[in-house]
């Protein structure tokens, strides 16, 4: 579990995050949503220690990440996996070397054991026969899957995903969402996803924090979000007529007025 308590962060005179608190629970997908510039990326970077908040606490299982020494912080970082917006794969390394890198760095296993683990996670993200390819030879979706494999290869307790669907087509986005959700449940990981992809919000958002101009404007689940009366949230999420119609339909499904017979597996076939 990750608890964020009264986090504030500013750059110069500009306050980017103003008194945000949230609790990210294990085994579920915790989403931070908001428009561009709302501060969600800064919040995530504070949570993983790439930025230091001006005040507030970030507790990883009651361990204060902000105020601990560097050595202890490094230990917590070993429990963190992160999927970056641009995948952040090492250009000069093959897929296999990329995924094996954390194992090389932090384990004393022999090559055969490491390779077995690499092949396991690559199979888990549905990426086979790509071991010897370089990142430049992969599609956007494949890069994300390699990055996801690298993020989970050390069995992290916490998984952070910064806009995992950016630059992907809707179908590939769905595949990535489903993978993240399955891995989260399977390994009981506390997953934090930073997104403005509405499909992700509706499909995998167990807990959602909506940010607006550095403030937490709303929090709840994907079941609750469609019934929200928060005008800013509604303006953000249901920006198009199509999404408004989709909202109406989902509300009818949720209230049982029409059957919900959608199946993500069928959709992805």
């Amino acid at each position, binding site marked *: 579990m990750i608890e964020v308590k009264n986090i504030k962060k500013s750059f110069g005179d500009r306050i980017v995050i103003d008194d945000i608190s949230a609790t990210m629970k294990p085994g579920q997908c915790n989403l931070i949503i908001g428009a561009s510039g709302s501060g969600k990326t800064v919040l995530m970077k504070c949570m993983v220690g*790439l930025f230091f908040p001006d005040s507030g606490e970030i507790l990883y299982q009651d361990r204060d990440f902000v105020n601990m020494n560097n050595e202890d912080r490094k230990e917590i*970082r070993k429990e*963190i996996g992160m999927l970056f917006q641009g995948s952040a794969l090492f250009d000069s390394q093959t897929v296999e070397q990329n995924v094996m890198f954390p194992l090389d760095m932090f384990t004393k296993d022999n090559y055969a054991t490491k390779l077995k683990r690499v092949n396991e996670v690559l199979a888990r993200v549905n990426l086979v026969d790509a071991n010897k390819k370089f990142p430049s030879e992969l599609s956007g979706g494949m890069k994300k899957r390699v990055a996801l494999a690298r993020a989970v290869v050390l069995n992290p307790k916490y998984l952070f995903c910064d806009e995992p669907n950016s630059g992907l087509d809707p179908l590939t986005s769905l595949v990535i969402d489903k993978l993240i959700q399955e891995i989260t449940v399977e390994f009981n990981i506390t997953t934090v996803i930073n997104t403005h992809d509405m499909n992700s919000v509706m499909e995998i958002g167990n807990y959602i924090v909506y940010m607006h101009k550095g403030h937490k404007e709303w929090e709840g689940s994907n079941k609750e979000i469609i019934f929200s009366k928060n005008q800013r949230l509604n303006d953000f999420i249901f920006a198009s007529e199509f999404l408004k119609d989709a909202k109406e339909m989902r509300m009818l499904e949720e209230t049982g007025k029409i059957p919900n017979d959608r199946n993500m597996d069928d959709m992805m076939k």
Partner: protein
Amino acid sequence: MTLIRDIGRFLLMLKGMFSRPENGKMYWKEFMHQCSEIGIGALGIVAIISVFIGAVSTIQTAYQLVSPLIPPSTIAQIVRDTVILEFAPTLVCIVLAGVTGSRIASELGNMRVSEQIDALEIMGINTKAYLIMPKIAAALLMIPLLVVIAMVLGIWGGRLAGSMAGILSHDTYDKGLLEGFQAYNVIFALIKSYVFAFIIASIPTFYGYYVTGGALEIGRASTKAVVVSCILVLFADYVLSALLL
């Protein structure tokens, strides 16, 4: 103010390099990789430059020494000392500042912009130690070696050009090389090459590591790294010559 801030950040960067490696084997691997990149990668250009510098020095020295009172073997002495004292360490390091410096700055800049450095940080790796230390250590090992190779090839180039142009025979050249040889000159050149190696590796790592923005900024950081490195190499050359000669 910017200069003071940059110097402060530079010193903090150097301080940040010193920590216990997460995995000594991986650091060693990275060090060897950098040795190959810096040493083997620049060997070709260093060899070409050195041979031609020696050759041109011989021809131009012979052109200026017109007095019949000066024996031809003096040409070899002048070429030897010029190559050892100045051309091999300084000129080669200026070229290396361009070749190696721009590569280091753009490699780190690209890693920063594409969030690869952030990815390493989040894994719990000290990126200053893992990315910067091996580059500086490799430069400190390989650049003096390249300078020694440049000395040998420069002198050999002069010998070759001397005989090819009919200026002086191999025997006369060899005789001149041994006349009045001071081992201290080689030591001085090696001291210079260590100082230059540190400049050539550390300045580009600083500009590359702290780059912000996109592809345009990587190019700018790379150019700035080369310019600053060259100026500092020349400045250090002057200071060391004034202090040690």
